Each structure stands twice: as C-alpha cells, then as structure tokens.
C-alpha cells in the first residue's frame, strides 16, 4: 500500500513542477484562433474529428457540420496541424501562425483498411497500430451494426482472426464461448479478460439452477448497440502488462460518447422472427416391436408423432433503443435506453433486457478531464430446461428419450400428462409437461460504473486513474409441480438460488512521451492496479411440495451458501523507443499478487519485449519498385509472459472439511479434494512474429501472424489413488501448447463515390496439445459423462471412449448374433492399445478406449463483404469452423430401440439390420462421433438510407438475416453446439441442446 502511495505522490510532484514551467512559457505567447471545416470525399462534414496543433497541447473537435475552432496560445511561426478521426486517414498540413486567426480546411480520406489506426490496449498510451510489435484486432460500431447478435461476444463471431467464437446454445440469452488462440488452461477458464470503459466486467456462466448444461454468460447484460469500438489482444506477447489475468487475451470495449454540438437523438426499432432452422428426421414407421427379445420379430401397429412440432415454435422478438448525445467543448454526454425482448424457439421461454446507460465527460480546468459512466441493466428470462448432463428433467431430454408412438398430449379428461418414456426402464419428462407446467426463471440486476480522471499537466505527460465497479445480483428460481412425469421429482421441486457479485478495480497509469532527439522518440509508462471481488451465493431447495405454491417454503427447505473474497494487485513499467520512425522497440515488466495462492507463491513476475520494423519507411524501399508494390510494409515480433492467477478457486489451497448434519448433530466430513499450499499460478510464454503490409496502391492490406503459446505449470486436478483417503488434488504438472497461424486480407476492389465494395477474409489455424497428465496419461472430465478427456499428446477435450471392432476392410466385426461390438484387447497409456482376438476371430481382452475425435477446429474462417451503391448498403458474412468433431449423443439415444424417436431406428424396424443392432451401437460410443465442419451464412443485410429533410437527419431501413444457412454434413440440428455450455474442457457435445435458430430481422433507424 505504502509503495503505491509514494509512486503517486512522486508523480504529482513532477506534475506541479511541469505546470509551473509551462505557465512561465505561455506568458511570452499570443492567443490565436484556429478554425476550418473537415469534410470527406463527398463533401459531408466529419463529425467529431480531432484537430491538434502538433507539439503543443492545443486542439479541438469538429462539430455536427464538420466545423472546428479552437484557441491556442503559441509563439508565431510555422506549425503542423493534424486531423485524426476514427475511420479516416490522418491528414496534416503546415500552417503559419502570424496574426490572431488562421483558417484551414481539410478533406480527409476514408481509412477503409485501418492503416492509421490508434490503439490503447496493451500499451500505456495511445499508440499508432503501425508502431506495435504485436498484433492487435479492432472493430468499430460499424462492423457490428448489422450483426443482430444479442450480446457482444456473439457479435464478434467471424469478425477477428485468431478467435473462435462459439454459440453453445440456441437460447437467445447466449451461452457463448470466446477462445483467443485456443484454450490455455484445463481447470480454470479460458475466457478472455473483458474490460468495458476501464471496468473489468464479470463474465461468469453461473448455473444457479440446472438447465441441462446451458448457462447465460453475463456479458449478455451489455447492449452491443452501445459499443463504439473494441480492441482485442490475444496472448501474453501483447498482454503481459495485464499480468495475472492475461493468459486468455484481453477484449477491451469502449462505449459511445457524446460529441460537441447540439443534441443528437437516435432511435432504432426492430422486429425479429426466430425459427428452428432444421428439424431432425423422426421415426415415421407405423409399427413397433412387441418386446426387446432378439428372436421375437413380432410387431404391432402404432401411430408416430412428431414431437418437434409440439416443442418448437416461431419466436417473435423486438428491440427498441433511444439515445441522446451532445455537449459543449467542456461537457459531453451520451444517454441511452434500450429494451430487448426475444421469444425463444422452445415454447414457453423468452429473454428480455432493459438497459440504461449514461456517459459524461467534463473538463475541469485546462489539464483535467473527468469521465463517468453508469450502466444499469435488468435481464430477465423464462427458461425451459433442456439437455441433461446432471439433471434429466428437461423438455428436449424428454423428447429424445421418448417412444414417439405415445401421444404426448395430456389426457383430455384429467389433464394428466402421459409418461412418454419406456416405463420401468428409464423415466424422462414428457416434454409438453415441462413446457406447460415447469416454471424456471432467471433475473439479473446489474450496475456497472466507472470514474476516470485524466490529467495532462504538461505536453507528453498523461496520468490516468480509473475506478471501475461491477455489481450484480442474479436470481434464479425453479418450480416443478408435484405429480409429474420427471425421473426424480414426482413429489415436486422448488429452488431459489442467488449470487451477488461485487468487483472493483483501481488502475493508475502514467505515461510520458517525449522526443529525446529528432530521431529518437520515447514513451515511458508505469502503472499499478488493485482489484477486489466478492461473491456471495445462496440457495434453498425443497422437494415433496404441497399441491399449491411455487416457493421453497411449500416444502422442507435445504439451504446452501458460499462466500468468497479475492484481492489481486500488481504494478508495471513499460518503455518504448521509436527510432527514425523505422524501428520501434518496447520492453515491459509486471509484478502481480493474488490472495488465491499460498504466501510463498503469491508474487509473480511477467516480462515482455517486442519490436517492429517499418521497412516501407526505409529510403531504399521508397525509391525502389518495392515502394510502389508495397506502400506499407512492417515486420514485427513479440515475446511475453503472463499468468493465470484465477485458475483455482479462492480457497482451493486448503483442505476444506465439509459441514453436514446427521442425527440432529453438526459434523464435518473429510473432503474429496486434498489441499495444496505449493500450487503456483499457470504461466504462459508466447512468441509471435508477423507482418502487416499493403499492396495495389493501398487498396489491399494483409496481416499475418504466427504464434506459439506455451503454458507450463498447468494445473490439473490430479486424480489421487483412493488409498490416499482423497479423490483429487490440484497440482502443477501439465503443459499445454497452442501453435497457430492467422491472417487477414482486406481489400477495396471498387471505390467510387457511387459504388464501394469492401471485402475481408480472415483465417485462423490452431493446434492445441496437452501433455504431462500423469498415470495412464488420461484425465476424464465428468462434465462430458467421462467420455471427454485430456490425453497426453492430444488436444484438450478429446473424445475418449470405446470404439467398434472392425474387420481389416473397415466393416464391423460382428458377434455370432450378427451385431456390432466393442473392440477389445490390452489398454496402454496415453490412449494406446493392442487389439486382441480369440480363436474364433472374436475380440478378446478388456474393452478398449481411444481418442475417437477432437472438438477443436483445425481452422476458423470468415469472409465478409460490404457493398454500398448510392444509398443502398448490402452486407454478407460467411463464417465457419473446419476440421472438428461433434459427439452426437442426441442421435445415439434417438436411434436406439428403447426410445427410437429418430429416423435412424427405422432400419431395425424394417428388418434391414438385425434386431438389437441399435442397442449394440448405443453401447459403442465412438460410433457417434461426426465431422462438424460448417460454413454458415451468419449475417446478411440490406439497408436503404431514405433521403431526409429538416429535423430528421437520417433514416435507414434494414432487412437482415442471421444464421440463415449452414453448409455442413452433420446429421443433428447444428454442429455449432455444446450441451456442456461454457465448460472449458468439454466442447462439441451435442446432447439435446436448443439449436441456434435462424433469425429474420426488419429494422428502422432514425437520427434527429
């Protein structure tokens, strides 16, 4: 604590001296008014463009018509006036200041290829992207405008290279996983650090009630329409100054701000239609076997029902938002309110979000600017549980485990729902009963606020202090009325669970930029952070309820509670040099501590170095033909380390005894997990090298990067030999690597004032490998029914299970009864095995397991096209994941004799395969792995700007679609799915999760 205080006081002392110094200078200078107009190629004013008098601290912004004016107190002489604006190339002009007024107009060019982009993430001060030694991705509100995604992370799909963004569930409240350059932990989370306006925002996926594996991730609370800009850095090489939380990269989001001028009002409204994109082919064969005896082929006539027609519906949604922004030179504001309501495609479920946001910026004196932001959100949903990784009461679980020859409709006389499951063997909920009678809800009330103070005491010195707070309460309730068809809650079930999360981060960053000589620029930065978070969760649950009343007090209550607190603190220093505008070098170091780890392992040190060479600024380059061929050419390399202080739970280092009540007495139980005070944070070392260049007279830009991320001290939940008295222990034993390649090409094939076509292609290839798993080299995950594992030498989450015995020609080696069977033999470590055969050529030995599939895509691709012809804008985005597997548990169940609701079972009923084949295949899990490769028409939209007059500044109507088409060979609903929700290790698991709907959107946007 003392250390931080001293640093800051030192900083202020410098500030005081510098301010006095400046004051003494200004007395010699005269006041001059500098003004003009900034227009684009069509003559329209560029709103909000920033104008600065180089090497002074004077400048201003363009107003609604593109006019700017500011006063400067400077000596007469020549000066350079620089215009910068997001989305436009930087323009500069030398002016001569003589009298008391100078007028200078500018026409700026659109920066379609983002060549002059300025970024802040991973650097200490605003830095031109071309000076960076690491790759960085950025997006503007324009890129997200027609995505029509409900959440920010959903809108990122296909937009950036190096990212795999998966929507795990078709519920519109999300369930989205973002992976930047692959996963980087096994027991922790591989989610990037999300920062919104300086606030570290919580993105937990809390399962307060069991919805089958699906969970909302809390980024869904933030309205994507409020976003101005997003910057993304993907690993340690760029993110080392975020230290302990940077292993998975950083996504920094900036929301919209007010601009100088009269109030601008923007209103938008949308109507959406959600539909099931693809139905599973279901069993239509009008006969069923009388029994399961293999030799008895007798059948009886039955009527088959298509349950999907009864479960899915078309869901209508609306979204309305209103924003007002404006301001003066010293005060700026942005206020917005929005309402989203979306019915889901599963009958009886919906999601709504009401959000208010305020952003204020106030200049205090000449040096200080204070910004404050406040965002209040209420997210509500009505849920129908589906999936069934733990609980099996879900609607779609009931659908897949049903005999589809049972009419699921309730008895017209009694209103009682029939059990649709094969009785006495496996009881599952009648899906219509789940939809009609269950009442599951979630509600989140959230406040996110920030206060930022920016002080510029002297030219080049920048002091930023940010306090960010994120506070929410998520409440979930579940009710299943008594006397029902569920497998385990015939007496009824009621649950309420709450989580109250509070996070605060304090960040102080000081940077000083100066020209040490005419060829050497220097930027020095120091910073400190202090972060604290607290989670209090509570749950109460009751079974054996009375006939009426949904709350837990209608039964005997069992309650649970968990409280946790955590502090993370750190400090960093960074130094960059720019040499002759050619070579840029940066070095940085960060120290970090987290209360999660034992005292001896608490403090960690993370260094980074990076460099870039802008070859196109070399004299010979400019003079030779190279300059014509590649007007911009930069090569870059970066190396850095970061950590994952958050990989283990807050109290996981202790051996925690569990409280129980037995016979009216409180007791304590030895835990399954043995504590470990010696566990250290996981550490990632990343190296990346790449190049950024432009061709064809700046009409085409290309960025490519090769990276290698090595994680050592990977924490594994080591399975202990039970003879230790414990089951498991967290221990640093593993390693993980992600090697990959990413590139992005952006081109402007046509660019006239009437017709513009911008096309972007990005490609990412990642190869993940886990090593260091002890024992037999296999660590199965319970979240994937233990059929998913970390296996040495294979990617995280490999499908690891039994497989079919085959003949040399690849056909099934059948049993004497003519049925497929599991391979047998001798099992070795790391998924190896030797096949065994007995005298009859039949499999012998123990049933074998191996890696049968990999849910991690070999490559992620996207292709975005935007064409504007006069007032018409057309946009189309295709993106996809190639070379990955999906574990189709849905089909495995639906194709089986006992349930047999899917088409795959018909072959057995028709006698095309021996009776019992489906049951035999059901037992060979490796047979249910399918290639999931897909390319989707993710976004398509057409907008028209209606010419307006007077008060109405702009009116745009849009028709759009999302997820309209998928090109794939997958037999299930959709290969983009994960029943295990946002689980870090279990991916690509299809077990009756709600499929992603296709969405049609009609919208209107008016600006006043």
């Amino acid at each position, binding site marked *: 604590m003392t250390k931080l205080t001293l640093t800051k006081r030192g900083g202020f002392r410098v*500030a005081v001296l510098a301010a006095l110094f400046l004051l003494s200078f200004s007395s010699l200078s005269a006041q001059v008014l500098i003004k003009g107009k900034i227009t684009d190629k069509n003559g329209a004013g560029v709103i909000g463009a920033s104008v600065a008098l180089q090497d002074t601290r004077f400048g201003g912004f363009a107003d609604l018509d593109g006019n700017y004016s500011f006063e400067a107190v400077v000596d007469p002489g020549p000066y350079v006036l620089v215009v910068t604006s997001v989305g436009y190339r930087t323009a500069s002009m030398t002016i001569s200041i003589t009298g008391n007024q100078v007028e200078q107009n500018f026409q700026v060019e659109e920066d379609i290829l983002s060549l002059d982009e300025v970024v802040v993430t991973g650097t200490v001060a605003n830095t031109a992207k071309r000076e960076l030694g690491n790759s960085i991705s950025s997006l503007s509100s324009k890129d997200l405008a027609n995505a029509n995604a409900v959440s920010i992370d959903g809108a990122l799909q296909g937009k950036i290279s190096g990212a795999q963004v998966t929507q795990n569930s078709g519920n519109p409240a999300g369930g989205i996983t973002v992976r930047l350059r692959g996963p980087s932990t096994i027991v922790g989370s591989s989610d990037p650090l999300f920062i919104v306006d300086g606030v570290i925002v919580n993105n937990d996926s809390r399962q307060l009630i069991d919805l089958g594996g699906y969970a909302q991730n809390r980024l869904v609370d933030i309205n994507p329409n409020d976003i101005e800009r997003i910057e993304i850095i993907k690993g340690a090489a760029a993110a080392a100054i975020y230290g302990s939380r940077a292993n998975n990269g950083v996504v920094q989001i900036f929301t919209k701000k007010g601009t100088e001028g009269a109030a601008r009002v923007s209103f938008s409204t949308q109507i959406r239609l959600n539909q099931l994109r693809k139905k599973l082919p279901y069993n239509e064969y009008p006969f069923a076997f009388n029994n*399961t005896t293999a030799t008895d082929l007798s059948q009886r006539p039955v009527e088959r029902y298509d349950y999907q027609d009864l479960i899915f519906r078309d869901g209508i949604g609306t979204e309305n938002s209103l924003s007002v922004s404006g301001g003066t030179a010293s005060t700026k504001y942005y206020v917005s309110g929005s309402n989203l309501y979306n019915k889901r495609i599963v009958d009886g479920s919906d999601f709504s979000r009401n959000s208010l946001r305020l952003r204020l910026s106030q200049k205090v004196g000449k040096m200080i600017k204070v910004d404050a932001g406040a965002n209040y959100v209420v997210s509500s949903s009505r849920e129908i549980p589906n999936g069934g990784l733990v609980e099996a009461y879900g609607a779609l679980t009931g659908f897949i485990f049903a005999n589809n020859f049972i009419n699921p409709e309730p008895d017209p006389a009694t209103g009682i729902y029939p059990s649709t499951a094969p009785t006495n063997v496996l009881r599952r909920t009648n899906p219509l009963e789940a939809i009609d009678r269950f009442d599951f809800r979630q509600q989140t009330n959230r406040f996110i606020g920030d206060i930022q*103070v920016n002080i510029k005491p002297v030219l080049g010195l920048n002091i930023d*202090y940010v306090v960010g707070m994120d506070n929410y309460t998520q409440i979930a309730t579940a009710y299943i009325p008594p006397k029902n068809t569920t497998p385990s809650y015939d007496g009824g079930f009621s649950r309420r669970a709450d989580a109250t999360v509070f996070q605060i981060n304090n960040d102080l960053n000081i940077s000083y930029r100066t020209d040490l000589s005419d060829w050497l620029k220097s930027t020095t930065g120091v910073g400190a952070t202090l972060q604290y978070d607290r989670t209090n969760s509570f749950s109460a649950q009751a079974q054996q309820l009375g006939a009426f009343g949904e709350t837990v007090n209608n039964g005997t209550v069992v309650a649970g509670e*968990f409280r946790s607190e955590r502090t993370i603190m750190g400090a960093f220093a960074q130094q960059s040099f720019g040499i002759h505008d050619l070579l840029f070098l940066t070095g940085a170091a960060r120290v970090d501590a987290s209360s999660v780890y034992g005292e001896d392992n608490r403090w960690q040190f993370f260094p980074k170095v990076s460099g870039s060479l802008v070859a196109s600024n070399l004299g010979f380059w400019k003079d030779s033909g190279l300059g014509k061929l590649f007007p911009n050419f930069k090569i870059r390399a970066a190396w850095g380390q970061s950590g994952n202080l958050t990989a283990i739970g807050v109290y996981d280092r202790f051996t925690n005894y569990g409280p*129980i009540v037995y*016979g009216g007495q409180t007791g*304590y139980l030895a835990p399954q997990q043995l504590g470990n005070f010696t566990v250290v944070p996981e550490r990632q070392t990343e190296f990346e090298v790449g190049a950024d260049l432009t061709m064809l007279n700046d009409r085409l830009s290309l960025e490519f990067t090769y990276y290698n991320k090595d994680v050592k001290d990977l924490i594994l939940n080591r399975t*202990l030999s039970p003879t230790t008295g414990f089951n498991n222990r967290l221990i640093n034993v593993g390693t993980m690597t992600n090697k990959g390649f990413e590139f992005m090409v952006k081109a402007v094939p046509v660019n006239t004032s009437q017709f513009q076509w911008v096309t972007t292609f990005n490609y990412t290839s990642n190869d993940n490998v886990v090593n260091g798993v002890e024992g037999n080299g296999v660590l199965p995950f319970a979240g994937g029914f233990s059929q998913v594992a970390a296996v040495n030498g294979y990617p995280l989450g490999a499908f690891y299970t039994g497989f079919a015995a085959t003949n040399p020609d690849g056909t099934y080696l059948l049993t004497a009864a003519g049925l497929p069977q599991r391979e047998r033999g001798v099992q070795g470590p790391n998924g190896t095995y030797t096949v065994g055969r007995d005298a009859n050529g039949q499999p012998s030995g*123990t049933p074998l397991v191996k890696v049968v599939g990999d849910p991690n895509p070999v490559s992620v691709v996207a292709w975005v096209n935007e064409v504007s012809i006069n007032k018409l804008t057309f946009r189309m985005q295709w993106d996809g994941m190639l070379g990955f597997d999906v574990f189709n548990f849905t089909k495995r169940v639906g194709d089986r004799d006992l349930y047999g609701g899917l088409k795959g079972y018909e072959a057995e009923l028709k006698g095309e395969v021996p009776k019992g084949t489906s049951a035999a295949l059901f037992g060979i899990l490796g047979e249910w792995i399918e290639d999931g490769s897909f390319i989707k028409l993710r976004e398509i939209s057409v907008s028209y700007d209606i010419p307006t007059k007077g008060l109405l500044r702009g009116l745009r109507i849009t028709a759009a679609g999302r997820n309209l088409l998928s090109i794939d060979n997958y037999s299930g609903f959709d290969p983009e799915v994960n029943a295990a929700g946002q689980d870090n290790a279990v991916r690509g698991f299809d077990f009756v999760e709600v499929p992603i709907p296709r969405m049609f959107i009609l919208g209107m946007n008016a600006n006043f």
Partner: protein
Amino acid sequence: MKTIIKFLPFFFLFLVSSCELEYVNPNAPSDAQVLSTREGMITLSIGMKQNYSTAALGELIYTTGATSRELKGVTTFTSVLEIEAGGTALPTFNGNIFRLWQRMYRVMGMAEDLIENAPTVLASDPATLSGVMAHAHLFKAMALGGLATGYEQFPIQTDVSGKAVFSPRAQGLTEAVRLLDAAAALLASTPPSAEFNTRVIGANFDLLSTINAYRARYNLMLGKNAEALAAANLVNLNTKSQFVYSSQSPNPIYQEMLVSKNYSPRENFGLPASLFDAADGRLGFFLSRPDSTVGGKH
C-alpha cells in the same frame, strides 16, 4: 493545481478498499482446525459416520449386490450395463467398482486421522478419547470388511503420498478383527463420555453390540467359527443399532431404488425358488417389487 489536490483524497478512497491477501475461508474449516481441536475430533466422528451410512454403505449394497446377482442393473448407463453384464464385460475401470473402492478409503482415511490425532488432542479427556477411538476403530474395520466383500487384495492403511501397500483379503479381515477387538477392549476399560454418547452415538445405536456383531461377521468370513460364535453371543439382542436418515442424509437404498432407479432386486434375490424364503424381510426393506425386465429376463 488546486483541482488536482481536490481530487487527491478521491484517489486514495478507492485504493484503500482492500489490500488483504490472507482471507480465512468462512465456508468450511480446514484440516488444521479439525484435526487439532476437541470439537474437531467429535464433529469429524459424526461426519465419518454420516459418510459411511449414506455413501459407502450404499455402494457396498448395490454394487456388490448386483455382481453377486441379488440385485440387477436396470438403467442404460454404461457403468450399470457393465455391472449387470458382469464377467469379462466388467472392466476394472468401471465407475461403480471404482466408487466402492474410493468410498471405503475415504471412510478409512477419516478413521485413521481420528486414531492418529485423538490421543494427543483428547489426552486430558479419557472418556471422550475412549469413545472416539473405539468408534474410529469400528469404522475402519467396516471399511476393511467392505473392501474384503468386493476385492481380492487391498491396502489396509491409507497413505496420503499414494504409496499404499496391498495385502491379501484375509489379512485385511484379520486387521479388521484386530481393530474390533481393540475397540471392545477400549470400551471395557473406559466407558465413553456422556457427551460422546449423545453427540456421536445418538439414540438407537449400541456401539459395543455393533462392534461384536462385526467381530462375528468378519471372523466368520475368515473361517474362524469359534471366535465368530463367541462374538455373536456377546451381542445384546435387546438393543437395536441403526443409522438415522433424513432428507439431508438420505438413505442410500431409498436413493437408489426410488430416486436414481439404477438397480432393482432380482427375483427372489437371485436365489432358486427352493432356497428363497418368501418372508425374506429384505423385500420390504428394498421398498420395491422385482418387476423390472432386463434383456427379456426378470
């Protein structure tokens, strides 16, 4: 400048919010608290009893019950299918086989912690020490007996470093009998304290008779019929010992037969009709009639 100074206090207001790096876990005690205190010894005894009666006992009844063909697996979970198939179709890594092993050693680990720490922690309270030690000896013996029911070889002592040494089944049972003999001797020399009896033993549990009943059972399993008979004769037939169950500590048989429904009793508990006693009390105990069909068979 003045403005900067005005903002100064605001900076530090937030910075002092917390610099704490050592938080105490408010949710549960650590081993350091439990194994070094008198309350820890008593409450861990309660926890061990709860864990044996709700978790370990259930696994012993239905896993070994199914492999010995008294019960049958009726669901389609792979592990249950494998148990039901038995023989070579039952791999070593079957989840239920693993769980039986794991749960017995969890109980054994707690019993050993009590046996190791109680003499020091409860040195000044011999009556409570006697109860805690005898009780821990009984539960370790039951864990060993449970292992002897399911496995041919097993370690008779846990080892936190993971290097436990395997012993043959007979040696395990011999150790169980030794522990039970020691438990009976402890009770004979120092009767447990009233507090121990109230808090740990509770109503409807006769510790000495339970110890003697298990002495009889394990001696019988070892073929030591005379010792078994002698121990059986020491059991007080006028008392009844039972575990108590509640919704928080549910009866594992209730859970299995009525909630999870993975197993069901086999017709006549797998006995030929000629050997089956129609008045077998276990039928009512299992709360279910064996009317499930698996693979076309009852």
